[in-house]
């Protein structure tokens, strides 16, 4: 089991551009959550996808959008990039039906986005 995988590893963009980040969940997981982690801070919840729909959303603007595919993989899109969007973007997967005994989400290694 490869666990949660993310691509690309690193990305450099300029202000105003758009970016797409990708995530493949752990085998058997159907729920994907995205987090943004600024340098020196804890991860902040962006949104969560389950059954190809956005189910929960954190305090992030509409410039942040996503998608989940039938195979449970997911994309995070950010439009009109700002300097403040520079961060590590983490994808986490979990199983919706199970995990009632744990608050355990499996995180990928993240995508480091730099906006110049």
């Amino acid at each position, binding site marked *: 089991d490869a666990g949660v995988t993310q691509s690309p590893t690193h990305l450099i963009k300029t202000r105003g551009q758009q970016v797409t980040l990708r995530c493949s969940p752990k085998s058997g997981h159907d729920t994907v959550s995205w987090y943004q982690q600024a340098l*020196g*801070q804890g991860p902040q*919840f962006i949104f969560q996808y389950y059954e190809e729909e956005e*189910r929960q959303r954190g305090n992030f603007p509409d410039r942040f959008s996503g998608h989940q595919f039938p195979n449970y993989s997911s994309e995070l899109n950010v439009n009109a990039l700002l300097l403040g969007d520079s961060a590590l973007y*983490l994808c986490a997967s979990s199983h919706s039906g199970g*995990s009632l005994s744990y*608050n355990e989400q499996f*995180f990928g*290694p993240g995508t480091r986005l730099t906006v110049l």
Partner: protein
Amino acid sequence: LAKTTQPISMDSYEGQEVNITCSHNNIATNDYITWYQQFPSQGPRFIIQGYKTKVTNEVASLFIPADRKSSTLSLPRVSLSDTAVYYCLVGALGGRRALTFGSGTRLQVQP
């Protein structure tokens, strides 16, 4: 959402026991306490979770007093590889729960 407070940083030496305390005064009845570990340039990793009293696994122990307003993560005999950021989270259970991270505690283990 229950807010958590942890020390910003801690230093220790190899072989020592490290205790990291988290304060969560507004914890709700159905909230559990979960700890995650994060190494540089990696995603957080689940360590341990508990509701009350004491929980122990192969990695750590979690002590929760009766009032549940705080919890202590105990790492026995730390090694250099335990140098990481440790996050205390409080919330209800479920695979679809959004996790709320604070700033965490940066543990530095010295030789």
